[in-house]
């Protein structure tokens, strides 16, 4: 690393980027090898050593205490104090320091705001301010754009350029090629814990992607135009609260038709999770209705919903999708264990379960030594394939896939995408929720953008990324502009739109 350089660390999920940086930051201890800072070896035994050596890190999951103020979070660990041993906090000095740093690098934050009240983009700013007040020369940003809207990402890139101009070095960890090309001076590609190449940002996307995954991959999904049929899932006026009793879904009307993929795009935490859980009967509805094939299902139990022909790939596979300690075979029948051929009366039928497991492991290309292995021992991609295999083994009317490829290797992504499209072509309605805009654009036939619990626009898959990005940030084109785009919007949103007032037609 050189001073004033932005060095991108590119690699797939699980390639070892974050681990490497956690070692550098002193959170993990290296088994072998050494770190050189300014020519001197550094052996950080804890983050305190790393900070002292001028290394700061903004973690992928923010390291902020939600109930404390910005100033308190910034000062934590390096508090400005008065009164010697007693250590009374000098809040005034802390506030001033926050104000100074934010003014110098154009990172506006209110020192007295409580963290949990701030939007994600601002929280990230607080993280950067926190690192900068510690006077770091090297700033590590671990997947900083994963939770940002395209506009917030743009702002972040601006901040990074300013930091670079001020002579700070930045390690920028990402798996998004576009950002690397936009900002990096140098690129190091990591695969399976090894450096596989160094490149300049002038290298083409395909070259970088090939380096990253080790073989040439298709970045687009092959598919025919959809042939939508009857409405399968109809939501109207849906209102749902999150776990903290805060409104998460605020009047959503939506229709998914047989044979089409409806993608829900949006920055994470805008109500997508709660929407899906409400449909699945996992979360109570405060208002509105859910209809499956014309029948109201909102009072049904989850089991009844599943039995009615709904497949569900939950967004957090390790918590909601699988029982990690159970075997692959057992996980594959979690939905049908009490039905023939897998169960009879009170008993399970292990032979039938094992036989079907072997078939599905082959069919869905799950890489495992045996069907008896605990699911928790598989890689993320293979775990996800187990879920997909289970859900697609029933005759489906509707498939709900939430973040189906999160934390999954590129090979498995391709496979899962092709299965989703295959399901669509077989006439199933598909509701896809993803915070990866590329995934939504690649798979969906219509894209609904969700923002603060509402659908603020439904657009076609050919809509420019920038426009979807603005929608994700809650900015809708005004009526005059909407007229120009009306052609696309009209055909895509027009057909099913139920007469709900708040959501689809507000533009």
């Amino acid at each position: 690393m050189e001073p004033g350089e932005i060095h991108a660390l590119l690699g797939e999920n699980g390639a070892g980027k974050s681990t490497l940086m956690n070692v550098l930051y002193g959170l993990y201890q290296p088994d072998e090898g050494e770190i050189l800072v300014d020519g001197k070896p550094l052996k950080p035994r804890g983050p305190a050593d790393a900070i002292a050596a001028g290394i700061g890190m903004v973690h992928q999951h923010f390291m902020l205490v939600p109930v404390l103020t910005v100033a308190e979070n910034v000062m934590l660990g390096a508090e400005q104090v008065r009164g010697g041993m007693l250590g009374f906090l000098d809040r005034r000095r802390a506030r001033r320091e926050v104000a100074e740093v934010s003014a110098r690098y154009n990172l506006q934050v209110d020192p007295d705001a409580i963290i949990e009240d701030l939007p994600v983009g601002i929280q990230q700013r607080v993280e950067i301010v926190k690192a900068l007040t510690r006077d770091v020369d090297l700033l590590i940003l671990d997947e900083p754009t994963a939770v940002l809207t395209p506009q917030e990402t743009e702002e972040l890139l601006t901040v990074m350029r300013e930091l670079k101009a001020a002579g700070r070095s930045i390690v920028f960890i990402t798996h998004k090629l576009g950002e690397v090309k936009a900002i990096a001076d140098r690129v190091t590609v990591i695969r399976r814990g090894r450096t596989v190449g160094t490149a300049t940002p002038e290298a083409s996307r395909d070259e970088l992607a090939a380096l990253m995954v080790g073989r040439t991959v298709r970045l687009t999904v092959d598919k025919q135009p959809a042939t939508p049929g009857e409405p399968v899932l109809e939501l109207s006026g849906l209102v749902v609260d999150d776990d903290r009793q805060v409104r998460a879904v605020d009047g959503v009307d939506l229709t998914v038709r047989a044979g089409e993929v409806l993608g829900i795009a949006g920055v994470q935490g805008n109500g997508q999770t709660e929407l899906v859980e409400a449909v699945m009967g996992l979360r109570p509805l405060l208002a509105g209705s859910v209809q499956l094939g014309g029948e109201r299902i909102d009072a049904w139990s989850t089991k009844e919903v599943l039995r009615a022909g709904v497949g569900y790939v939950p967004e957090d596979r390790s918590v909601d999708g699988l029982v990690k300690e159970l075997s692959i075979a057992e996980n594959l029948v979690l939905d049908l264990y009490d039905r023939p051929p897998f169960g009879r009366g009170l008993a399970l039928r292990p032979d039938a379960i094992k036989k079907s497991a072997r078939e599905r492991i082959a069919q869905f290309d799950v890489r495992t030594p045996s069907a008896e292995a605990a699911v928790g021992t598989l890689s993320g991609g293979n775990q996800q394939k187990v879920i997909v295999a289970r859900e697609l083994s029933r005759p489906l009317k509707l498939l709900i896939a939430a973040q189906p490829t999160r934390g999954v290797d590129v090979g498995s992504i391709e496979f899962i995408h092709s299965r989703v499209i295959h399901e669509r072509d077989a006439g199933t309605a598909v509701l896809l929720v993803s915070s990866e805009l590329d995934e939504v654009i690649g798979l969906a036939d219509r894209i609904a953008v969700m923002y603060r619990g509402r659908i603020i626009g439904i657009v076609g898959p050919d809509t420019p990324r920038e426009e979807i990005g603005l929608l994700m940030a809650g900015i809708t084109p005004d009526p005059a502009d909407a007229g120009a785009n009306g052609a696309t919007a009209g055909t895509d949103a027009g057909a099913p739109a139920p007469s709900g007032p708040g959501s689809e037609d507000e533009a």
Partner: protein
Amino acid sequence: MSTMAVDDVAVAPVNEGFWTRARKAGLVLTALGLLAVLLFPALAASEPARFTLSEDASGAALKINGTVGAALFGAVALAAGVAILAGLPKRWFTLVLGVGLVGFVVSFLCWQVSTAPAGQNFMPLVNIVRGTFILALPLIFGSLAGVLCERSGVINVAIEGQLLMGAFSGALFGSLSGNLWVGLVAAAIGGTFISLLLAVFAIRYLVDQVVMGIVLNLLAVGITGFLYERLMQPDPAKYNSAPHFSNWEIPLLSEIPVLGPALFAGNIFLYLGLLLVLVIHIGLFRTRWGLRTRSVGEHPTAADTLGVRVLRLRYRNVLLAGAVAGIGGASYTLALFSFTKNMIGGKGFIALAALIFGRWSPTGALLAALFFGFADQLATYLSAINSAIPSQFLAMLPYLATILAVAGLVGRVRAPAADGKPYIKG
């Protein structure tokens, strides 16, 4: 492209709840007020109810006719309840609720005192206030021990055991040495011993903290019970006759009517307890230690990435909590009684309730402890005047209040986010 923010769009129609938390509280208060207005005056005798400003029937007194008083203060409670129900501005809520509850209690007392047998139809306020503080004292120490532990993310169910161990070692070493201060230090060490076990098993070996706490309580009962039977019972003169701290009157302050003799003529434990509330409150919210403690209790990983040593801080706080609770235990054996088997008798669990009722804050815990102490004292008083109300009903009050508190009726109760979750690095 001109833009418009989505915030401007009309909110989708949702049935907005009329029954806010304030309104529910108002409804309860209105019901209490109605009860007071309709029932208490009818039951009260038309005799004077005297509230004397001393320890007995003598001296100045506040006097009111029982029927009139019960009706008057019942009306206060009712009015407060209705006001809240009608939708009072938020900033008045706490005050009006407080006035209403006090009105209800006074109305109740007017009824009780006026119907007491002749010669007993007075209430000595000094006794009541002093008794409230004395009964609240172990709760104050206990809940402060809870605050210290749980703010740093370790659940402390072992308060009972820490109090008991403190009481025991205070009595034992106070007797052996014949020195109060040795007894006090020994009590702190006794409480710390239980804390040390909690810390090692909860922090180092990641044992479930609630289970560990319960086990430690049983352990403390076992150890102290055994040693009590083997040492103290055969030879109480040697092992169980610790000297007691005498009361220190604070000049001037002790002259204040009612509060003076009740509050400023107490023993060292009373002053220490109140001082600790203040010190821990300031420490928690105004010092480096407090900021680190709170962040470790909320988000230990974040604190760790900034160089705060999470486990060491937790150890320190848990041990400190043990010392505080130990001293609380000594407030029995070095000031009031000699040691008896299982003498804490569940106060540690009420302290835990006070901690939750007080929302994990030192001042809140103090108020909760005083409320519980008052209920306790009132129960004693009512049985003394042969009240028709079974004293067991009043003894239930603290627990009922805690259930209501935990159910979220008195503001949202939110424990520190990492409370009870062991921290594992990496």
